[in-house]
Structures are given as C-alpha cells and as structure tokens.
C-alpha cells in the first residue's frame, strides 16, 4: 500500500543517498589517500635522497629543509589522525612539500656546484686526454645537476665523482696542469701556460700530439 510504500521507498532513497554520499566520500577519500600516499612516496624518496646526500654524499645539510621535512611528516601524521586522510591537510602537506622541494632545488644548485664544479672542470680539462672516461664520468655526474628525488642519480653522480677523482688522481694532475687543461679546453691556453711542469706532464701522458697550438685571432 502506497501509504507505507512511500515511507519505505523514501527510506530507501535516503539510504541510497547515504550510500552514494558514502561512496562519494570513499572516492574522495581514496583520492585523498592516493594523494597522501603519493606524497608520502615522494617524501620517502626525498628523504632517501637527502639521506644519501647528507650522509653519503656528505653535502652540507640544510637544517631548515630537514626540519621542514620533519614538520611535513608530522603534518602527514596529523592528517590521518581521524582515521581518514583529510584532504585539506593533505593539500597543505603537498604545498609544504612543494616548498621544500623548491628550497632543496635552490640549495642543491649550490651544493652541486660545490660538490662537482672543480671535478667537472678538471674533467673538462682533461677531456682531451681521455675523452671516454671523462664522458663516462661526466655522464654520471652531470645529470645530477638537475634536482629530483631520484637517489640513484646521486649515487651515480657520486660514483662518477669518485671515478673522476680517481681519474684525475691517476693522471697526477695538479692545479697548474689543470688550469692549463682548462684553458686549453676553453681555448684560452697560451704558450705562457706551458710551463715545465705542464710540459712534463704532457710528455708523461703522451698528450703531445693531442694538443694543438693556434694563433689568437685578432679581432679586427
């Protein structure tokens, strides 16, 4: 009878609503959770990355970044305190992470440079000597210039650095030579730069034929 049917159906609809709402919530929740996890994954990666960098690569620790990250992690903890990841909180966390990333990126620039610039310039300098090895090293090092949370990249960089050192060491290079090599690479080396040490080194390394002399063009 309709009199009762109305009630039942109404209830059913309410239930449906609820369920739909629930479902809707669930999806949202899933999405939030997804975001949460994703973020967490990213943070994991980040942490792993900076852990490597700080602990293994021993770059300068940015305490701020670390504390921010710890804060961020705390934020993430709070975000699920209710039992469900709260979207807003997750969003805030995301923003925070982005900021950290930004900071890190900035910081890395410095750090990278610190870490690799001389090696890389040396390598550059000796590129003519052993291009392959230099390339190998550079190949390992240079990608790490661009910041991301790929820890492997830094491991490779480190390896590259080490290899570069080894290489340089193996070459017995000193600064004079290196400067000479650099100038050579830069096209700036002049005979002036050819001091004995350098010449000796060149001869030792049998690089005589690998270096050319050219006149400086006058700008006319």
């Amino acid at each position, binding site marked *: *009878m*309709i*009199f*009762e*049917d*109305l*009630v039942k*159906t*109404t209830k*059913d*609809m*309410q239930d*449906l*609503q609820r*369920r*739909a709402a*629930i*479902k809707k919530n*669930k999806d949202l929740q899933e999405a939030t*959770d997804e975001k*949460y*996890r994703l973020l*967490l994954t990213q*943070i*994991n990666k980040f*942490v792993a990355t*900076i*852990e490597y960098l*700080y*602990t293994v690569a021993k770059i300068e*620790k940015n*305490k701020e970044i*670390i*504390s921010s*990250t*710890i804060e961020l*992690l*705390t934020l*993430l*903890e709070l975000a*699920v305190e209710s*039992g*469900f*990841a709260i979207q807003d909180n997750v969003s805030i966390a995301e923003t925070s992470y982005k900021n950290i990333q930004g900071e890190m990126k900035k910081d890395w620039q410095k750090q990278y440079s610190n870490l690799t610039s001389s090696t890389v310039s040396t390598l550059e300098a000796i590129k003519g000597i052993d291009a392959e090895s230099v390339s190998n090293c550079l190949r390992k090092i240079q990608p790490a210039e661009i910041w991301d949370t790929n820890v492997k990249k830094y491991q490779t960089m480190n390896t590259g650095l080490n290899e570069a050192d080894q290489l340089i060491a193996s070459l017995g290079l000193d600064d004079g030579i290196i400067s000479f090599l650099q100038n050579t690479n830069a096209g700036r080396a002049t005979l002036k730069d050819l001091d004995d040490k350098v010449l000796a080194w060149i001869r030792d390394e049998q690089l005589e034929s690998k270096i050319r002399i050219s006149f400086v063009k006058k700008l006319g």
Partner: protein
Amino acid sequence: MNSEVAKERISYVARPDSITSSEGDFLATHVAVNKLRVLDKFDISPSEKKTFSEEDIFKKYISNPEDMHQFIAVYGQSGTGKSHLIRWFEARYEQSKPKDEVILFIRRSDNTLKGTIRQLLEKPEVQGISNKDVYERLLKASLSVDENKLKDMIYHNFIIEIHNDQDEQDIKITNVKRKRLEAFLNNEVVHDYLMGEKGPIERIYSKIAEHTLVDRDTVAKFKKEDFIVTAELADSIYSAGADPKAEKMARELMADESGIEDAKKIADYLNQFVSEVIQRCAGIEPGDFKQIFMDIRKELYRLDKKLTIFIEDVTSFTGVDTAILDALLEAHTGKRDGEKLCRISSVVGTTNSYLQDNFKDNHKDRITKYIYIPSDVLDENGLYEFVARYVNTMSLSEDVISDWAAGHANPEDYPIHDVIEGKNWEYIDISHEKKINIYPFTKRSILYFYQNVLEKGHQTPRYIIRDIIEPVVRDAIFNKSNFPSIDVKIVNVNTTLSFRIHSQIRNESSADRLLKFMSVWGNGAPDQYEKDGKTYISAIQKELFDDFGFPILNMDVIQAPTPESVNPINSVNTVSPVNNEAHTEGNDQIVPDAKIKKLNEANTLLTKWTNDHVIDISATVGAAGTVHSAVYDEMPDYLYTAINWQAEGISMDNAKKVKDSSVLFIALEGQTKKEGLYTLPATWNNLNILLAFIRWKEYGNKSWNYPDADFDAYLITTWTESIRKELVKKVSEYKDGEESRYIEAAVTAEMYRIILAGEFREKSLKNFNGQTLLASKPNKLANNSHSTEWRSLLNVMSQKGADVNNQQTVRRYFNIGQGGASSNVVLDSLLLSKVFGKVKRNKLVIAEDEKQSDDKIKQRRDAYAFLNDIEERLDNVAKAELSAGREQIQRIYDAFGDDEVGEEELSIFTERVNKFYEEANKSQVNVKEVPLDGIKKRDQIKKAISDIASVLDEDDSLTIIMAFSGDPIKTLKPLVEIIENLEKEVEKANNIVTTKKASLGTDGFEDTGEDRYSEELKSIQTNKQKLEGMVNA
C-alpha cells in the same frame, strides 16, 4: 269519429291505392280535384294559367257531349291522383251515362299485364266476341307462370331477339357489337347480375306478372345504369372465364365516358324488343289486342252501342301498349275496309315519362286532349277536406256508404257520421253547408304532418293516407291512453312550453306526450286565451285535452288572436313561426336569422338525443358542430371558473390537469366519442341547459346580452349548483370513492430527482424540508462522476421535460392561488405537511396497490409514470453507483492499508508524499511530480469516504443514492488518481534505487579506523627518524 265503426272500416277505407277501395268508399273520400289544366299538346310542365275543376272537365270532355271519337290522356307526377281522378271520372260517368254506352274500365289492380288481361276477360263484351281463338289465347296468357321460369324466358327472349335482329329496328348496332352483346348476355355472371333484384329483368317481369314488390310506377325498360360495368363485376366476369367477346363487351362498358355512352346505346337498343319479349313471354301476340279491341268495337257497333274506355294506368299494358294505342286511337269515322267500328272515347291515365318515351309521335299526334294534374293539386283546405272525408267515411258503415253511392252519390246527400268521439273538436266545411268533425285531428296537426312528417316528394294523397291519416286514426282508436304515441319529431320545440310542461309534470313520458300534443295539434305556444267563452291552450280548446286525459296546465294568458287566412301549402320549413323567442316584446335586440337557424338545428338534434339517448357530436360543423362546441368548449370553460376548486378542496393544479386532459368535464349521455367525467343525462332540462349555452355563444356572442338571457343565466347557474358536488367529486377522484393522490407520486419523484441531481446531499431525509422540496436550486456543476446508470436515469427523467413538468406540479400544487394571476406562492401549509410528511415517513415508497397509474387524466397519470421511470431504474443505479464507490473506496483503503482514512491520515499522506519527492530529488531519482491539489480539501475527502463507507453493506437503494448524492466518487477521484500515479512513480523510484544501489556496489562501506594508514604511518616514522638522525648527526 265513431271508433266502433272505424275499428272495422279503417283497413278498407284507408287504402292508398284507391283501387281496392269500394266504390262507395271511393266516392265518399273523394275530394274534388280542381287545379287541372287542359292542353292540346303534351307539355311536361305546363304553364297554362287557366285551371279547370274535375266537374268542368267531366262535363266538357269526359261526358263527350258531342259524341266524338276522343282519346284523352290524363298525366301528371306519380302519386298525384291520376288513377283516382280517372276512377272518379268513371264513377261519375257511370252515374250519368247514356243508355247505349258501354263502359270498359281497366283497373289498375296490380297494374300488370296479366292482371289487365284478366280484367278484360271478365268483361261480358269481351266474352261475347266472335274470335274464340284470340279469346283462348288471352285466356292462356292470363294463367300464372312460374316466376323464375318467366323471368328466364324474358331474359333469353331478349337474346333471341338480338340474335335475330335483321337491322329492322330504328336503333341499330353493328354485327360485331351484336355478337359481343349476345356473348355478354350469355355469360353466366352477367345473367345473374341482370336478373337480380332491382335489375331490368325484374322490372320487366313486374309488368307482366302479378305479385311483385317492384314499385308500380317503374317503367319496364332497360336503363343505361343496368349496363355500366363496375370493376367488381368485370373481375367476376373475367375470373369466371368468359368468352373473349363477352370480356370485350365488359371492358367497353366499364364506367368511363365512352362506357356510359355504350351502355345507353345498348339499353335503348334492347328496349326496342321489350314489347316483343313481353308479348311472347305472356303468350300473346301483338295483334291479339288490336284484334280484341277491333272485335269489341265491331260487336258494339253491331249492337248499336258506343264504347267509353277508362284505363287507370296505361303502363299496365306494357308490352302491348302500341297495339292498344293503335286500337284506341283509330277513329270510327274515316274510311276503312271491313266492318264498321263503334265510336270510342278513351280516357287514359299515364305518367309523364311514359308519355314522353313510349307514345310514338304518331300516337301523340292523335291524342285529342291532354289533361294535366299538377303536383300541388291540394291546397290547404283541400288537404283538410281530404282528411275529413276519410275520417268521415271510416266512421260510417259500409251500408250507409254504398246506399249513398247507389243513389247517385249526390253531394247534398253525402252522409255525415255521428260524432261519438270528437265533441268540441274542429269541423271542416264541405259543400252544401255540410261539416265534418275531424277528431282525432286538428287543422294544425294535419298541416304539421303534411309539412314536417311527409318527405319531400311524398306530399301526395297516397302518402297522406298512409303516413298521416291511417297511423293517427289507428293511434286514437287503439292506443287512446297514450295518444299521440306515434313517433313525431317536434320541430322547433318551444322551450318555454317545454319548461312549463316539464316543471309541472314529473313523469317524462307524460310530459313528452303533452308537449307533442300541444306542439303538433296546437301552436306549441305556452299561452292560453278565452274566445267565445271557451278556453284555448296552445290554441287547442281545453276540452280536447280532457278527451285524451291530458292535464290542464297554467299558461300565460293572452288575447285571443284574429282568424288566420288560408295559406297555400308550401313544403317544409316555412311554418308559421311556432317558436320565435328572439322577437320578444319590449326587446330591441334582434338576433340574426342565421343564428336562430343554428339554434333550431341544434335543438332538433338535441331533441332527437332526448329520445334516442345517443348522439354523435364529433363533427365540428352543422348542428352537431354547434353542440360539439358547447360540450367541448363553452361548458368546460364555464365550469372551470364557476366552480371554486380551491374552496372545494381541490388544488388548482389538479383542476387544470383535468381541464386540459382529453376527458371532458361533461359528456352527453350516449355521446359516441369522447369520455366525460360527468354524464349529462338526455333529459329535457339538460337539453335546455345546452341550448342556453349555445344561445350564450351564438346570440350573445359569449355574453348574456341577448333577449331572454336572464332565463338562460338562471338555468345555467341553478344547474351548476345542482351538479357541483358530483362534478367536484369526479374531478378530485381517481376512481369511484378513491381520491386522486398523484401529488404523492409527484412529490416522491421530485424528491428522488433532487437527490439524484445532487441538490440535496445529506444521508438521511431528516433535513429534507419544505425549502428543499420547493426551492431547491439547481446543481450548477457541469459534470459529475456518477455511474452511467445514474446519468442515464437523469437523462430519462429529462426527456420531454418530464422532470421540469413534475417539478412544476409539485411547486404549484400547494399554492393557494388567486385566479392564476399572481406569481407569488401562498402555501397550503397543512396540506403540504400532510403530503410531504407521508411521503417522507414511507421513505419514498408508494405501495403498488396505492398507485393510480391508470388514471384517466393523463397529466395525473404522468406523475406515476414519471415516478415509475425512476423506480424501475433505481435499484440498478444504486447498485452500479455502490459498486463503483466500493471499488474506489477499496482502492483507497488498500492504498492506505486501513479503513480509516480521515484528515489526519490524509495529512500524513501528504507529508509522506512531499518527503518522497524531497528525497527523490536529493537522491536524483527521476520521478514525475504528482500534484496534490486534488486532496487539499481534506474534510471533503473525508466526508466522501465516509459517505461511501456508510453504505457499503446497505441494500436500500434510497439510502445508497442519498449517500452518493453529493457525488463522493467525484470528490475521491483525484485521490485515487494521485494514488495510482504515485504507485507508478514509487515503483519507478524503487527500480531506480535498486539499479543505483547495484551500481554503487556492495563493498564494505564500513572501513574506518586506524588500520587504514598503518603502513603509511610506519613509513612516516621511519622517515622521521631518518631525518632526525640527519639533524643530529
């Protein structure tokens, strides 16, 4: 009169045919015929001014003073007294004939050939003739022949004549036609037809044979009418299988123009053979008669005698008439061969048509004189004398008369009877200062009979004897105590006289008798006067009344009138005004003659009605029409206002219905068509009432402004009072002793109508009050949701406006109106209560035996018919309505899961519906909106439901329809619609919900809790530790 003598003598004396009366009686009753005309040439209607008396003619011609051959033809219309005159001539001649004169008198006797022959044979002169053969042939011819055989002989002789016709006759027909005619006549059907009574053969036969019934004056001829063939006859001829020639003839003779011509030709043709045929059938030869007469004359000449022959009616010689005439017309003078003939003087009576048709021209030329008897041969005095002589002769014994006759029948010796009855009665003067007492007649009565009783064309001596003298005298002799008992219709009854008589004599037949006496024997006036010491009442001497035992009544005394002059007797209708009430003294109003005539004609008709007790007034013209108007219009219109129906306790509605019905208020006793409530008996008094009404209309032009209206007004008003009670009873009653109760049916029906039309919507009759009944307003709602049966019933009720009519009846019935003038209603409150109360108490049921469905008055009957239309359908209506209602309400109950559906439930329902739609909206369940306007008026719905619910188990139809009168079904329709629509939508919703739920999946929607992120939290911790480690390191 001398009744003792008259008793015996009347049959002998009162003989219409003057033939069979004795000589003495003949002479004693003879009244001199005077207005005779003498002509030399035949003229059918002579304009000769000079008249002769019979005596003149006798002296001048009959007695043949110059002893010449003569042939005198005496003619005139039938019944004028030709035979009588000739007989008188003969008798007169006998008295004073010369010695040598032989008189041969051929009597009319039975006017047949055979009879005539017999007469001849009796004469000694005939017996003595020499030619015995002829004599014997005559003898043989005089013998009787079997009637049928003779007729057949006649018939077949005609055929023989035709067959043998060698074109010798004057009128010829072609051979072809002749053959056809023969075949035609030979045809059995034609034979039977022509042989029939009133047919030509019968006529011809009658001239030959004795003892026929055919009128003596018919001519033995074929007439064209005999041969006009009707379609019927033609059919009979064909179907009997006729000779084709006969059929052809029949067709030719069918009644159209040429047919009639042919028929005449054939009749004329055949008539040529009549004489031949008659002679042959009579066994005589034409020559025989001629021979006989010649022989007679020769013999007489031989004896030195002369012959005077009187033939009363020459038509008795039919068949041999030519021969006779030849014989008679031959003069004794003149050259002839053979023996000498005696002088012959013939006086022959004949009719006009016979003279014209049967006397050939050569005959006509030889007639020496014509004597014409005109039809008006009797003047007034002659009439009186005629009657007087008969009465006188009847009162004298045969001896006295024959003695007188034997002694030359001298007028101065004419015997006068002794007045045994009739002292004080009138006398008629005859010649020689003799007077005859005419008891039991008065001159007036003779005149009255002559003018009013004898039919036109029968105002002749023969009928005077038969229709006046004989019946009246017989009545006076044998039925004196009831005299005059003969059936005489009184023309123009004098109402005053009638009134006076009837008011003084209670016995109607005695009163009628006296009225007749005074109107016919007297002058019919209600007055009396003294003259010469005698009292005359209605111009009849007082003593005459005593003779018949009539009472003497008081009449108005007037002056004795001066003696009247002698009038010529005219035919009917210009009687000296016996009754001219329109010209009363001192009154300058004249009523036009045409109106008087109208009244008189009506009077005659109504007088007949009072005698016959039947009357046909269905015509609307003529006398019947005049009476018709009085009975159908004047009387009912008058009675309708003259009787105060309301004061008599009859509603004007009822009175009007009765007036308008096809039943008359008053019908005449024995009225052939149309019924009346009250029957007006056929009495003199009621005759007067009717005449009064007629006079009011005709003389007064529907007013009382005419002479003697004061009497009529008195009559009518008095009569009104006398019939009032009975008429009122008849109007108010349905049947004898039972009051009309149609108003109950009308009220009942109207109550039903009010309920059915939804003008009263309560469930019980308690509040059905006067206002509801009389002033209920029409239900304005255009449509309803009643069952087909209900609507069909309303439809039936409105056919021909029956419902409106019935309502009008109810609304008018209880009104105490004032002559129909006003529109305001004043209620007869007690009557209304009574009727209304009864109907309500009986719950609108009228018992079958109380119904007056066969009421004579149609409009009252209609009330029952109308009610019946309702009643016979009501059960079905209730059933159908209840069924629909039950279905509907069940639907609702089912929908609500409860049989209590009131305002609260409806309110909740509405809420629920609203919530349903709200949630549907929220849950995006696509359902159509069902508007709830129809259930806004919750109290109405509740009432509707409860109305229907209250009669679910009811079987009384009235209760049921009352419950439904407010059309609850209509009220609930929207609810039901809503329910149905909602059900659909709810189902739809359910389906959608199910689908949607399914698509939402059934996974656990219950996941909550901290376990959810346990991994992640671990991970976070790990990281945190790492980082903290980094910080610290």
